[in-house]
């Protein structure tokens, strides 16, 4: 009985807010922080303040140093990194503390939610064993109570079956569930500060929103200060009080979120704001309409997919990857296939390209039947139908030069003389906005954005009618994404290309597509024009996808007054 009482006690302590006396000094103050790896400086003279119970976002693109700052605060910098300046936590300089005095702060005072939940738990130990490590930080002596505390926390973070999660190995849970576990473990010892490093970037969009909601709610209910690291301005604006915008390790702008967001003063913050698709739905509207006006003919559709089904047998189980889908794309327009992972969008484009055979149904591109062809005769289709892959780091042969890569399709299809080919290569390179001096480089010496331009040039050089774009910007930073989208749309306007654009990013689709098909578990649940789908979604799944687009407006949840014994909404598990 006594232990039962203790359990209740501990639970109450863990749940209710103990309104600690608020000292004047901020919980976390970073002054003149610089971090370097060898001779390379990655963070320069950065400073900011985070008050108790407040939230602050460090925002920037890859190479901005945002994650390095987070790791400096957590003292998890890799070997060889040197940090100078001060990280004041509760008026103690963390950088100057000896390890022996810093370790008691870890977990107890400062919690950490990592970026990729799939790698953040030891793969060969059960989640329960690892959760016990976090529970040990509560100073609760009884193992039974620690265990109860863990299960209770798991329930609070929205895990349907806490006991199952406790007994599982990490690979047995989905990414969304793992991130809930990790958030649970981080908040379990009731830290004063939670550092979340891109906590949702490895997750599907609808799950992203749920995880962010959970974080906001916990932050509020448990009065935790949140240091959020993100590349997404819209998310940052929606979830935090203060914004710090970083570029190349230097603070570009900092201030109250509402101020920085609505009227950014630095050029970089303005550009960042302009490049986020969710915040600028009409950015390319003119370009998009120009293409349509110049090229739209009332001819037959360029692409027709009718009643196509494809099943795979995986380990004896039949999996319907694509279930009776149909759509058509008019010449000169962009059709977007939207869905989360496992929705069948990748299978759809592989069918479209003839890389997979449909079990039933028909596919034609530019009036030619794709399905049922031999590999040899597919070449004739590919002459007019090209693909740009998602990841430009794997889609270009690392041993070839840019010139050779772009010329390869011309060589293979034996188009023109070698002089004409060289000319066409130069033209394609210029079309995608690359400088000629890059022609002799190999992919390893190019940035991600440059590589994707090479991949686009490669698909353009054959002058195809249709280009299939498989999440062409999802591996790139937003500003690079904006440049690539611009290139794609102006090419479409000039050359009358037809695009099939695969994406999980609805905001991006809203910017550039003409028509949309929304896919879920292998079926198209809704299709129509961009205006129809976004203005008046009919299917609940579409509506939930739309709702998960971060709008840059503060979440209403955070505005409501927190109740002292908040019981968390149990959601459907991701």
């Amino acid at each position: 009985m006594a232990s039962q009482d203790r359990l209740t006690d501990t639970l109450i302590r863990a749940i209710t807010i103990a309104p600690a006396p608020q000292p004047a000094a901020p919980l976390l103050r970073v002054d003149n922080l610089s971090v370097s790896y060898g001779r390379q400086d990655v963070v320069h003279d950065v400073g900011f303040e985070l008050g108790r119970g407040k939230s602050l976002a460090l925002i920037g693109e890859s190479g901005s140093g945002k994650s390095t700052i987070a790791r400096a605060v957590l003292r998890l910098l890799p070997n060889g990194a040197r940090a100078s300046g001060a990280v004041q936590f509760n008026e103690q300089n963390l950088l100057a503390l000896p390890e022996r005095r810093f370790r008691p702060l870890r977990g107890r005072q400062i919690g950490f939610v990592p970026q990729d939940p799939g790698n953040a738990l030891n793969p060969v130990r059960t989640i329960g064993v690892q959760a016990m490590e976090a529970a040990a930080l509560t100073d609760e002596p009884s193992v039974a109570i620690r265990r109860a505390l863990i299960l209770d926390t798991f329930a609070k973070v929205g895990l349907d079956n806490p006991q199952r999660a406790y007994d599982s190995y990490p690979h047995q849970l989905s990414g969304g569930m793992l991130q809930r576990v990790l958030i649970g473990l981080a908040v379990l010892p009731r830290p004063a500060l939670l550092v979340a490093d891109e906590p949702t970037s490895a997750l599907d969009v609808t799950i992203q929103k749920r995880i962010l909601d959970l974080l906001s709610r916990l932050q509020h209910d448990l009065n935790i200060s949140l240091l959020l690291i993100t590349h997404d301005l819209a998310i940052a604006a929606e979830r935090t009080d203060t914004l710090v915008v970083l570029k190349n390790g230097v603070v570009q702008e900092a201030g109250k979120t509402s101020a920085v967001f609505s009227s950014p003063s630095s050029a970089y913050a303005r550009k960042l704001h302009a490049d986020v698709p969710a915040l600028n739905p009409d950015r390319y509207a003119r370009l998009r309409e120009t293409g349509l006006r110049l090229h739209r003919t009332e001819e037959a559709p360029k692409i027709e997919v009718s009643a196509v089904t494809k099943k795979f047998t995986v380990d004896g189980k039949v999996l319907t990857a694509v279930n009776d889908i149909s759509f058509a794309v008019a010449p000169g327009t962009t059709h977007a296939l939207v869905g989360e992972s496992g929705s069948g969008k990748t299978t759809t484009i592989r069918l479209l390209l003839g890389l997979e055979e449909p079990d039933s149904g028909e596919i034609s591109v530019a009036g030619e039947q794709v399905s049922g062809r031999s590999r040899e005769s597919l070449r004739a289709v590919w002459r007019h139908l090209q693909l740009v892959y998602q990841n430009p780091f794997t889609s270009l042969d690392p041993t070839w030069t840019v010139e050779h890569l772009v010329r390869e399709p011309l060589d293979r299809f034996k188009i023109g003389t070698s002089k004409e080919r060289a000319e066409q290569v130069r033209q394609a390179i210029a079309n995608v906005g690359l400088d000629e001096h890059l022609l002799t480089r190999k992919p390893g010496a190019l940035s991600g954005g440059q590589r994707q331009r090479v991949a686009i040039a490669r698909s353009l050089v054959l002058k195809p009618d249709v280009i299939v774009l498989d999440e062409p910007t999802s591996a790139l930073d937003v500003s690079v994404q904006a440049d690539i989208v611009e290139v794609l749309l102006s090419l479409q306007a000039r050359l009358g290309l037809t695009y099939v654009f695969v994406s999980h990013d609805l905001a991006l689709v809203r910017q550039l597509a003409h028509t949309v098909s929304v896919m879920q578990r292998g079926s198209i649940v809704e299709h129509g024009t961009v205006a129809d789908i976004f203005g008046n979604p009919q299917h609940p799944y579409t509506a939930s996808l739309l709702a998960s687009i971060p709008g840059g407006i503060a979440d209403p949840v955070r505005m409501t007054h927190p109740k002292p014994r908040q019981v968390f909404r149990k959601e459907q598990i991701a």
Partner: protein
Amino acid sequence: MTFASNLTLSASTRNSWAEALRMPAIVALSFVVVATIIAWSVAPQLFTTYSPVIGVPADKLLGPSTAHWFGTDHLGRDLYARVVYGTASSVSSALVAVVIGVLAGGFIGLLAGFLGGWVDVVLARLVDVLLSIPKFLLAVIVVTAIGFETINAAIATGVSAVAIFARVTRAEVIKTRQATFVEAAFLSGGSRWYILWRHVLPNASRSVLPLAVLQFGESILVIASLAFLGYGDPPPASDWGLLISIGKDYLKWPWLVYAPAFITILTVLSVNRISRWLRKTD
């Protein structure tokens, strides 16, 4: 010679040349050692005035000195001269072994990995069989079957390395074949054999090169072991393994073991270090 051309392979553009030349001091030192060894095997007479075969009986079993760097053996022959003259057969036989391993193993691995299907199943079993026989025993029975000579020891060592190269090449080819850029080449109208030749082979061979260098060092050790057991050329040949084998009967004069052993170890260490560096810079 091989090492110079290996270097150019990995550094085909001017840019990577500059990077290739920026190497850690220890790697540079390794190249110096290997260059010296190669020079010994090409022109041993430039490095010593003593004869490796004819000794001065009065000078037998002398310790290392300025006159005899590694001392002299029981017949009064200069040990340094014997080591230098023994380099050619020790090193070139290792080269033969690697070439056999790379060509035969690479070919098997390439076919198995690229063709797949029953070809792969058959070849993969064959490789399993080769792997299942302990390597050194395999080398011993092959050299027994074809005769005790250094060149046969080299062939035997090469045969015992075939399975490793086949396995690694197969794995690399399969990995490359599934790479996105290979599918991209299909979509650009490339035929199967064109893609094998122009995309799969260059990419797969990038990781076979460091392995070949590693195997070179390993082959020196295996051939030395065969020579030590007396399965190579008989005396008065002076293969390193044979020198150590003779020296073991004179352990009172330990330099007879330590000097050739030191050269063997130094060579293999340098070769391994270069392999590791190649793997990292890739």
